[in-house]
């Protein structure tokens, strides 16, 4: 397994949110993490990337235990995280934001320019905006920039928190298509936190979180077919 989460508990201050999450992502897999607001989806991603501490349980990535490592060290192991709200740095240009993603590769990163070019082929809408202030991008473009920026670090796994948030359905379909294409081209695994059931069209497997623990998991198409589940846990 690329990412393996066992009995993970975590929370904010003293308030527990996760009460024992078990989740796996295999190499090159697209996994959807679903659930209503407050189920613990964002908290799971934050605990995996080290923004929140692991209270108990374990998180291992590519065979290494992550507990106690700071977020920047986890990023350098190849763990990408596009946070809730996208994390676009509006004081920088689009290109500076993008290049910042290469930091995860460490010193002497090579082929950054080629990788950037390849990503711009996929996220074509960013090409004409490279010199613009990142804050001037539209919501959809900001989401593309956030994903492209994470990918420039050549991660093995990218966790994306609510890619579809605030975007028109047609943009969501387009972005999900791009994610499927990136996985096919580069073999990068994705863990997609969503409240939008459209994600099940591209995911291999899915987990449904409820009350800080996994409620259901299985192949994405099976969950998509379960109407009750979709109605109860997705809008």
């Amino acid at each position: 397994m690329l990412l393996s989460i066992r009995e993970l508990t975590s929370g904010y201050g003293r308030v527990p949110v996760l009460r024992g999450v078990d989740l796996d992502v295999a190499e090159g897999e697209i996994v959807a993490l679903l659930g209503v607001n407050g189920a613990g989806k964002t908290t799971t991603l934050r605990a995996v990337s080290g923004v929140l501490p692991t209270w108990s349980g374990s998180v291992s990535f590519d065979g290494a235990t992550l507990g106690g490592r700071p977020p920047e060290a986890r990023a350098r192991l190849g763990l990408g995280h596009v946070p809730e709200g996208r994390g676009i740095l509006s004081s920088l240009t689009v290109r500076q934001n993008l290049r910042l993603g290469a930091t995860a590769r460490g010193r002497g990163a090579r082929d950054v320019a080629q990788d950037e070019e390849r990503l711009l082929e996929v996220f074509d809408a960013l090409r004409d905006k490279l010199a613009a202030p990142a804050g001037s991008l539209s919501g959809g473009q900001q989401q593309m920039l956030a994903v492209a920026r994470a990918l420039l670090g050549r991660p093995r796994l990218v966790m994306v928190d609510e890619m579809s948030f605030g975007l028109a359905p047609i943009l969501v379909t387009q972005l999900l298509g791009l994610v499927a294409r990136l996985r096919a081209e580069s073999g990068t695994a994705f863990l997609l936190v969503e409240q939008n059931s459209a994600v099940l069209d591209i995911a291999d497997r899915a987990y449904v979180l409820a009350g800080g623990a996994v409620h259901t998991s299985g192949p994405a198409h099976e969950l998509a077919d379960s109407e009750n589940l979709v109605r109860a846990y997705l809008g």
Partner: protein
Amino acid sequence: MWQQIISGLQAGSWYSLMALAMVLVLKATDVPNFAMAELGLFPAFCTWALIDGAHLSWWLAVPIGLLIGVALSVVVERTAIRPILAENHFATVLMTIAVFVVINAVVQLVWGSEPRKIDSPFAGSFTVAGQVVAYEQLLSIAAGLAVMAGLILFFRTPLGVRMQAIAEDRVTPRLLGVSVTTVFRTSWALAGAIATIALLLQGQASLLTDQNGSGLLIKGFVAATLGGFSSITGAFVGGLALGVAENLAGAYISTSSKTAIALLAIVVVLSIKPQGLFGRHQVREV
């Protein structure tokens, strides 16, 4: 009048440098650093001691002084600031005041309160269009310009971009692999060197006493505030404007009005433009 403007630009360059050092630290670590000037005062006294006591040449003593300035700032950041930064922002500000007091006491203890002068190879002056210009004045202005230009270039390098990123958002850059530790250390190291340059220039053009630090600290804060506390160019222009305004007021009103001018400038600018002359509007979540 021309003389007053040249002298004003010279003093203004010291204020600009101090403001640049403070803006650097504030941008990266979000701490208004009250110890900034003292972090330059101690190395300036060391440089004076190397030249006057150990008879080192200026060309050798100044690089050593700069290294001491860098080392002192890095040590203070690591031992006094970083351990409490995450805990309590107000405590960090108090800590910078404590560092100010401690360094000042050490300087007084070691070198006393007697005024010193750093001997430099830039003594003398020349005449342009009937006006006398000292080489020291040119040196101060050139050093200020060079540091500002250097910083603008630095902020375009990958490390500079990482510093700006951390200044804007403490979490997202770390998710991209940016080391906060490196960014903090670099910003304090650079600021320490720049503060040392300011105190050295002042110490060789006029006098070096244990009081220079507090004087430059206030002027640096005024200059940085005028510039909006986030802009490199703003801090620089703010310093020069303050220096010139002070000197003109000193010549045409009275010498005792100099300090009042600095504070008056703040009141006027902030009441008209609260974000400073070059500052951007910042929305802070509370």
